[in-house]
């Protein structure tokens, strides 16, 4: 099964298969690794890498919006998106949302500074959609996935509450 994982704007292609001797063979950008993986709770993975048995602990949590995942490694947290789903259905499940309508919502109370798209426009995944000011910070909200803008619900200058739908993408 092959997955595209985007971290910090770079997409890595990762394929996973069960190894004959147990564990998994994980190939990342052409480089193979032998990985022993144990699930810990709902969100944790304990990984033992290669022959040295390097132990790494990783937690993968959906961040609640846009299908973004928050990955925690040794006290640091980075965002990742799993957008390719070439041969498995797991990717779609992990992303949380894959088909149908998607909404760009305000993460906190604030004010709309700019709307960057128009109704009917085609947008790419992670394209900037709306700029919202909250706590004196401008924050660009991005498209959760590629699609067409079905509805623009707000305009520049509108005050918005947390959870308010701003733009609908289909």
């Amino acid at each position, binding site marked *: 099964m092959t997955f595209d*994982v985007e971290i910090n704007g770079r997409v890595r292609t990762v394929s996973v298969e069960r190894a004959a001797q147990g564990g998994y063979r994980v190939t*990342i950008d052409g480089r193979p690794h032998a990985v022993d993986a144990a699930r810990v709770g709902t969100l944790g993975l304990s990984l033992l890498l290669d022959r040295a048995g390097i132990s790494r602990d990783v937690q993968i*949590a959906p961040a609640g919006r846009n299908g973004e995942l928050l990955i925690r490694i040794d006290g640091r947290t980075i965002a990742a998106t799993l957008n390719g789903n070439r041969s498995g259905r797991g990717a779609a499940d992990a992303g949380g949302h894959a088909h149908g309508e998607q909404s760009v919502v305000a993460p906190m109370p604030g004010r709309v500074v700019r709307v960057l798209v128009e109704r009917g426009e085609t947008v790419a995944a992670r394209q900037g959609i709306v700029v919202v000011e*909250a706590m004196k910070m401008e924050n660009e909200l991005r498209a959760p996935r590629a699609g067409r803008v079905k509805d623009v619900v707000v305009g520049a200058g509108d005050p918005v509450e947390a959870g308010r739908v701003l733009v609908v993408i289909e």
Partner: protein
Amino acid sequence: MMKILIANRGEIAVRIIRACREMGLPTVAVFSDCDRDARHVREADQAFHIGPSEAVKSYLRIDAIVDAARRAGADAVHPGYGFLAENAAFARACADAGLTFIGPSADAIALMGSKTAARAAAVSAGVSVVPGTERPLDATVSDEAIATAADEIGYPLLVKAVAGGGGKGMRTVEDRGSLSSAIRSARSEAGSAFGDSAIYLERRLTRPRHIEIQLLGDHHGTVVPFVERECSIQRRHQKVVEESPSIAVSPELRRRIAGAAAAVARSVGYTNAGTIEFLLDENGSFYFLEMNTRLQVEHPVTEMVSREDLVHWQIRIARGEKLTIDPETALTPQGHAIECRIYAEDPDQGFMPSPGLIRGLRPAAGPGVRDDGGVTAGYTVPVFYDSMIAKLVAWGATRDEAVRRMSRALREYEVLGIKTTIPFFLWLMRQPDYAEGRYDTTYLDRLLAARNGQSFSELTDDEEDLAAMAVALDAFLRSGPADRGPATAWKAAARRDALRE
């Protein structure tokens, strides 16, 4: 027997409930709409709803809180910090309702709550204050008169709100030309934050350290000051890391600062827990800044190096007990303690609030680590309040050991589903100037400005590979028939999210 209503929420409410339970005292929580499932509600013996989520309609409602105390049959109120903790009207309302207010008298709160009156009290107790205007400058004072006063103080200076706190209504003025615009914006900010637009001027010291003295006063005339805390690690005038003792304070200087703090407290007949803040300049001169008439956020570092429980003492003092802490011992640090305030904020987005559902939580533990948490897994951090979710405290025999232990604990601390300031603290602990204690109140803002928004969670290429492999493996495992259980739970979680949106 006392039954204590805690007029607060979050970690401080949990902290106070812990103390009450240790003392065998029943507790009453209050909560707003969005806090029904909050940790403090779940841990208290009783809990009462007091209003909508907005703080002005719930945690700031004196009438609703006093009414909850009456309904619960409580006979004492602990205000925690923030909200109504320094509101003299609240202390009076509690007294009028026959409730013991666990804190200083309403008069002491009112007196020290005025920054200019507090400065006058310090001066009459023989303590130096930062040079500045003696009286509040209300809206009737002309800009020309203020400019004349400013010339006497000298530039750069600070415009501060008389009723201020938390950096609100505060402006730095470099020269005479920018004075009147700074006064206008400080007045307007102070007016909306505190309902009082009066300001005063204070000289700005170059690179001062923020040193403060915790003290306790009983109702029998005893005031005991503790070893200083240093809170110079500030972002935009907000403390983010505190420690005790200060690397900049010798035992001799400690005696002088603690003595000054105790003199100010005695001169106003102060009772219960309070903190006097000072600025310490490069020459070892210290100046009274203000008094906080409540328990402070950073009180755990004092508890760690004094082995005293300040909340227990607050309750015992309110019951009329005598302080039995040896003053010599209180001024002798036992090791070193550091506190990091863990916020639901994204340090990589300019510390923007990151409210949301906490999907997993495993606080750090082990030797010398204390977690004062206010949330649990499954709780949604609301947008209505301060976003601090926990205070992590590390103790070491030496400062160096405390710094290493804090790094270890931060690495262990697991908060899933929301962004927190943990990666920022991990980075800060590695900074050579921090590790060696070379800093002042301007240090962190300068350091952050120099970073230009670079991520605090930077991973090496190998670590990014690891993260990508983990994401792929996770998806692979969820897709397999052997992992039906987790996959189903995951889908259910995803469905819930979809509904939330």
